[in-house]
């Protein structure tokens, strides 16, 4: 027992002695002695002195306790870099530290750059007279941090007498030094690169964006940016494109609120890019761009967006009544078989999707002839708007039980009470209902729709079709659910008084929609002509309807047809030819020629362009909630903003070209021009006061003042 214990003790002590010996050996063989500073230790190491060579690398070798770190030349949001002071070095000339590329630390969202565990900071050194002994003596001041920060001051000395070094020098040291010399970024002439960093002001977080090409791909890439100003950046987001040959990096700016944008744009920014463990360094200029290129988005993401966007369309005020009525119409026939309900919904879904496909085909066809169509383009044709207006009017009136009509099934929809006894008719009607709902949905630009359509319009015909089909799928999602689980319909209470009230309410919504379309039309054709036509039409209806209250009944079908033809012969040319002449707002695009714009901008003015249209509901919402509030008006006045409105209610290829130049295909489009943003910054589709204030401050190049 005793012996075992003693043996154990002996083993332990020999182990300790070996440990101590090794430890000592390390310190002895190194350049200078380790200096312990509690959170780690530091020493100087040097290359072997060779005759005929006067330049050497010296290294500050840190060995830190895990968790503790020191900082890079640009420490990030906190920290400061190591500095050294020559105390009484002899016979040498010391250059600056050549910083190896750092690592990124995250301290609860505060990003800092530096080194942990072990690092060697190389310093170039020149021996003035190689025949004499030299001596390095440095005072280093640095900060070391973990959960607390401690400023440190350490004095290090290393005699460089020839004999001394040759004996003491260690291949291990050289290896160590070379390891970190290899981590010093290679400086690349930036003129060869033809690259830029793009500053993209966004509503939530503005970003810096940079694209990097690499033929051999990417392996653990990282990037560090150093601007002339205090720039706090979030972790970079990497996006690999072109078969991993290109990397798009986005760095969100955290302190945009305290930044002087003009300073950011005028100063070269140092980029340190790391790939395959090697770093390059170059200077790039930052350029502002007002619109983000959506090309980087992955196709499946766009498809997903399309589905979501399509789904959101269901809740737009102009679509909601149509689809709700569809469900209610089926409530009336709760005795029907599920199979029938299923078929009915399926035909409705088909209607929605085919409408989207027709839109896509139209876009592709017109593109083939060199004509670009935007989202909601059909509302620019007065004849189209007019027909839709009529149909909606009839629907809403029938919902209020004011007229009982039996229109041809291709105009009417399943909402019309009298049709539900014919199954095949119902299916066709469901199909039309789907088509119709889609057409009505188009001017209601949901924010997501804008992005996807823009993407679609920039891509191949096949992708256009796929994206539109996905939108159709998204829009028919609620219907699909009903088609799969038709028994869900039994969950809805039996039709009773509430359906009547709901129908009235939906009719009211439809009335509002009609009113809106009426306003759109007034902007497209003269009011008096419009009223005349509507009068004629209602007369035609009075003749055609078999309403009990009026007791007018036409028995002769041919007579009805003749009346219809006459009415249409009168109406169509009027609608087509009596379009309103050029309105002053269309001409306002000419204000935007470059020379005038430059004149405004050089006078320190801000130009705010609002591309809008009567049929664009989102534009109206923007106006009502943001642009025409007293607060924003006052702000525009104070900031000397020139407000230019461009009306796109009617088709205008120049305006469309203008919209396309911002990588958009539809409206709302609001652009801010300023001294530092002569190309304009596009605002998000849904405006907020804050985003306007911010972008205007950015365009001025001034600090963003928080309101």
């Amino acid at each position, binding site marked *: 027992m005793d012996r075992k214990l003693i043996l154990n003790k002996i083993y332990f002590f020999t182990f300790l002695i070996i440990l101590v010996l090794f430890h000592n050996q390390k310190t002895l063989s190194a350049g200078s002695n380790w200096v312990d500073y509690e959170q780690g230790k530091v020493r100087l190491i040097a290359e072997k002195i060779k005759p005929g060579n006067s330049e050497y690398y010296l290294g500050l070798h840190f060995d830190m306790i895990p968790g503790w770190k020191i900082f890079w030349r640009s420490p990030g949001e906190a920290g400061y870099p190591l500095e050294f002071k020559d105390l009484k070095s002899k016979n040498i000339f010391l250059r600056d530290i050549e910083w190896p590329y750092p690592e990124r630390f995250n301290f609860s969202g*505060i990003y800092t750059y530096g080194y942990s565990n072990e690092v060697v900071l190389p310093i170039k050194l020149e021996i003035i007279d190689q025949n004499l002994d030299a001596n390095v003596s440095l005072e280093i001041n640095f900060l070391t*941090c973990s959960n607390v920060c401690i400023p440190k001051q350490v004095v290090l000395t290393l005699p460089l007498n020839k004999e001394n070094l040759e004996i003491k020098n260690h291949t291990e040291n050289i290896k160590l030094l070379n390891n970190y010399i290899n981590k010093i970024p290679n400086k690349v002439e930036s003129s060869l690169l033809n690259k830029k960093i793009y500053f993209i002001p966004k509503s939530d977080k503005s970003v810096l964006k940079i694209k990097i090409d690499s033929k051999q791909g990417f392996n653990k890439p990282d990037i560090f940016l150093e601007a002339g100003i205090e720039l706090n950046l979030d972790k970079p987001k990497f996006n690999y494109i072109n078969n991993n040959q290109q990397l798009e990096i986005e760095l969100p700016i955290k302190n945009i609120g305290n930044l002087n944008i003009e300073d950011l744009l005028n100063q070269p920014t140092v980029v340190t890019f790391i790939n395959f463990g090697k770093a390059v360094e170059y200077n790039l200029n930052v350029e502002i761009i007002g619109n983000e290129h959506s090309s980087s988005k992955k196709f499946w993401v766009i498809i997903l967006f399309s589905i979501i966007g399509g789904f959101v369309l269901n809740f737009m005020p102009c679509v909601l009544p149509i689809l709700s009525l569809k469900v209610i119409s089926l409530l009336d026939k709760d005795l029907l078989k599920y199979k029938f309900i299923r078929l009915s919904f399926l035909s409705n879904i088909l209607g929605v999707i085919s409408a989207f496909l027709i839109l896509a085909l139209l876009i592709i066809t017109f593109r083939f002839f060199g004509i670009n169509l935007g989202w909601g383009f059909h509302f620019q044709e007065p004849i189209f708007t007019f027909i839709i207006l009529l149909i909606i009017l009839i629907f809403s009136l029938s919902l209020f039980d004011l007229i009982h009509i039996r229109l041809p099934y291709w105009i009417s929809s399943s909402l019309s009470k009298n049709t539900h006894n014919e199954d095949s008719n119902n299916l066709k009607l469901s199909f039309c209902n789907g088509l119709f709902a889609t057409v009505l949905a188009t001017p209601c630009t949901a924010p997501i729709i804008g992005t996807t359509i823009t993407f679609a319009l920039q891509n191949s015909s096949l992708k256009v079709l796929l994206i539109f089909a996905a939108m159709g799928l998204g829009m028919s999602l609620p219907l699909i659910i009903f088609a799969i689980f038709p028994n869900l319909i039994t969950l809805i209470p039996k039709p009773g008084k509430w359906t009547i009230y709901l129908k009235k309410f939906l009719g009211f919504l439809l009335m509002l929609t009609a009113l809106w379309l009426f306003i759109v039309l007034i902007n497209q054709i003269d009011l008096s002509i419009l009223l005349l036509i509507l009068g004629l039409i209602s007369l035609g209806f009075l003749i055609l309807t078999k309403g009990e209250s009026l007791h007018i009944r036409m028995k002769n079908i041919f007579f009805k047809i003749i009346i219809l033809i006459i009415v249409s012969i009168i109406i169509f040319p009027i609608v087509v030819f009596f379009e309103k002449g050029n309105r002053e707002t269309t001409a306002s695009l000419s204000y935007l020629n470059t020379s005038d714009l430059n004149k405004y901008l050089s006078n320190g003015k801000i130009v705010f362009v609002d591309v809008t249209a009567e049929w664009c509901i989102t534009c109206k919402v923007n106006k009502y909630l943001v642009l025409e509030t007293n607060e924003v008006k006052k702000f525009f006045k104070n900031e000397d903003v020139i407000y230019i409105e461009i009306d796109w209610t009617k088709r205008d290829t120049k305006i469309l070209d203008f919209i396309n130049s911002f990588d958009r295909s539809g409206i709302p489009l609001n652009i801010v021009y300023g001294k530092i943003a002569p190309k304009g910054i596009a605002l998000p589709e849904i405006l907020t006061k804050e985003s306007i204030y911010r972008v205007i401050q950015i365009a001025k190049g001034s600090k963003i003042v928080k309101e």
Partner: protein
Amino acid sequence: MLRDQKLLKNKLFKIKFFLFALILLAILFFLFSIFNSKNDTSYYKGEMEKFVTTNSKYKSENIFWFDSNDKKIRFNNYNGKIVLVNFWASWCAPCIKELPSINMLNNRLEKSQFESVIISIDKNREKSKRMYDSLELNNLNYYYDKKNHLVSYLNIDVIPTTIIYNKNGKEIGRLTGEADWNSSDAIKLIKYLIK
């Protein structure tokens, strides 16, 4: 004789009783003090776990610092309140993290009883002022430790360090490292110190 004995017995009893009472009192006092001190340390828990009571020799009435206009601020201005003095720097990430919580704390307690003071130890005053501005610390003023005289006098080599002084300006204790000063633990501790 018998009477004498009886007297002696009586006297002895009295002494015994007195001694017993004394011991009892001592024990009670001991228990009380234990209980009391236990009560004291029980406030140093959770977020305040790192709070250490100190027996500091540095007199608070001597200390001073400067505001952004270089006006001298004396500690005496704060007498009669519990004072929390936090030393921070723009280069110290843990400090930046905890400052907003001190800002919130200052708003949650009665100004006449408690006040927080944050003192920057940056050598670059402009930079720390910018950091102070960007943090939007509306309930705290900007102060700085000119030439770092204060940290060297108070023997502070690690930041963040927070010192709490009692109503008479005596140092109660220090917390080294960051803490959530807006936590219930911190509020409990300060409220206890106010009483």
